[in-house]
């Protein structure tokens, strides 16, 4: 994908936002082109299926937040929305092809905020 702007990003660094444009850090883009990246920060429940973004923050109670973080859903985690509706299913994607799927009830999904890649 030629229109992808490669940006070096490391875990722990603030995500680089690029509205409507994919800005992933890899040679082989995982975001399926412009428009597949989340345009701006919004709750997980507002995402469209197939959109990819980075977790920016959660507004949950400490127990639920700690559980999600331990499951890998923490700030800067790269996620793809696989299914909207009860449950919201997301894929937490990592380098090397590794990924895991997490199902979330609406009451939790609406408190997970996703920003652009």
């Amino acid at each position: 994908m030629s229109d992808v702007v490669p940006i070096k990003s490391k875990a722990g660094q603030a995500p680089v936002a690029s509205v409507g444009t994919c800005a992933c850090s890899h040679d082989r883009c995982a975001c399926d082109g412009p428009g597949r990246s989340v345009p701006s920060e919004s709750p997980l429940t507002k995402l469209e299926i197939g959109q990819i973004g980075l977790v920016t923050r959660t507004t949950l109670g400490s127990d639920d937040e700690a559980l999600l973080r331990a499951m890998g859903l923490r700030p800067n985690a790269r996620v793809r929305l696989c299914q909207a509706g009860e449950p919201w299913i997301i894929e937490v994607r990592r380098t090397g092809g590794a990924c895991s799927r997490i199902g979330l009830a609406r009451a939790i999904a609406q408190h997970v905020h996703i920003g652009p890649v």
Partner: protein
Amino acid sequence: MPIVPGHDVPAPMAAPPGPKRVALLGNPNTGKTTLFNRLCATRQKTSNFPGTTQEVRIGLVRDEKVRADSIELIDLPGIYSIELQMTEAALCRGVLAGDVAPRGERVEPPDAICVVIDATDLGRGLVLVGEALRRRLPTVVAINMVDLARRRGVHADEAKLADILGCTVVVCSARTGEGVEALRDSLTHAPIPNRTPPGDAHALEHWADDVFAAVALGDERADTDTLTDRLDKAFTHPVLGVLTFALVMTGLFYVIFKLASYPMDLIDGVFGRLAEAVRVVLPAGVLADLLAGGVVGGVGATVIFVPQICLLFFIISLLEDTGYLARAAFVMDRVLRPFGLSGHSFVPLLSSHACALPGIMSARAVPDRRDRLATILVAPFMTCSARIPVYVLLTTILFRDRPAMGAVAFTGCYALGIVAALFSSLIARRTILKGKSRPMALELPSYKLPSLATALLTTLDRGLIFLKQAGTNILAISIVLWWLSSYPVVPPPQRALELRAQAQALVAQTIPQEPGTATEPSQSAQSLNQEADRIEANHATKMSFAGRLGRTIEPVLRPLGFDWQLSVGIVTSFAAREVFVSTMAVMLTGADDTEDQSVLNRLGAATRDDGVTPIFTRAVCWSLLVYYVLAMQCLPTLAVTAKESGSIKWAVVQLLWMCGVAYLAAWITYKMLTMFGLS
């Protein structure tokens, strides 16, 4: 210089050689249980932590080189982080710190830790690895499911990972056995890691991300797993998902009822013959009665459920292994959440339709404590197989020539049980278990073929636990109830003796047609003997301790339309509901074969002490049906509730609530029917 911000520390000497206690730690869905089974096979037992219901499996790993057990492996509960505020995490913390140990084990830190991480998603387990490394115990990291990772093209540099972590890293596949031997060797010679990751939670997360970035090979995947997406969509769809779930559960239900019936009949026959043999071998008396009626009868009545329990856990283990159950939990979550239950509660509730004992035992899969307690409390409302004989008896009396109506009533009983369970959960969640059901956040494991070996070992484990319970608590309860129902032994009443004498006289008058051929007693002699049996059984039950208790509580049950005989039936069936049918049959007809139509007819026509009023009027039958749908008439269930909830308090709450609801509903039913002249 290490890539990650950990601290270099000098590598201390490895722990002294000898049998080691190794704690097996890992995230859920990393194949930890399969690895444990691969390492220990059948050389394992299930224990628990003192004061909790949290189970832990302990296995022995044999070293074939020295032909001895080299490792004692403690399979800790699957957790995402040791630091989470959850019971399972607290127990793991306690075990690693040496503050807690499984029952019967030394309370001291383990000699080593083995952290199992998923090769298909290495990054997910690294926080837990970091937490384990900070314990400064000899540590081995087992990268499991490497076969699956290879198939998916997921690779990592394991040598680099070992270098960064400063501990032994072994790549293995518990499913195929690859690398398991190497893991076994590493566990006995594990060194203490020479690096310590940061202690702060956020710093540890960054450390884990950096470690992963350093060892992961290749880029993030560009493709999307469309097959998994489609399966997830189907299995969690509001309509298709429910239909699929209904289909799967119908299959489960069918197998439990149909396939289990063969071994159950066999067990029934074996215990029946065993009781007969005891009576033949031992002289008639208290000991023979105790062994045949109390011990063999009581244990047999419980052991008969082992096939159902084994099949249930076998199928559930297979379903769980495929990855389907996690999706199904979300489907049922939509239905159960408004009633204060979670999607995890469905399998226990469904299982309770076979028997509440395995249903309550399977509630361990419900992660939230209050959700779990609510599930345990309401599970016995589900119509179990022990209620079916009672339903059959009462619906047959109610709808003798209208089987279709009988079927409707039967279905109504099932529906009433489900409604009562949901209604009770709703009340519990607003009173004693205040709070909403915890919203679900669940990892959805990859779809894969289930492991037959794991399912078999799980089944064996569950079956043995149930048998152990049958041999202790349930046996004691059975003996007490048998004693209450059988003692004191009273002489037969005068009327029964007279009838037997008359019958004997009739037989004596019957002359053989040909010398050497015996003749059957005449029809009337047989009838006289039957009537004598009925009077004798009725008298023996009436005078037994249970009978006296029944007569004592009769005033309490009178508002429901029950006379003293029904009250006795209710008292004697307190151990098991199906006993009601045989008690009533023996008391009212002198025979216990309730499959015999004539016995059923005589039961339906039985009268109260006045000899005129039928015992089973329409209002009484409906009242009894409602009572048996809702009442807690099963002592083994109470014993299991006390064990699984960790307190006898919950068993008492369950008993009082269920019996209270049953009493009120039966009273309303009886009053309404009599008020409208339908009695």
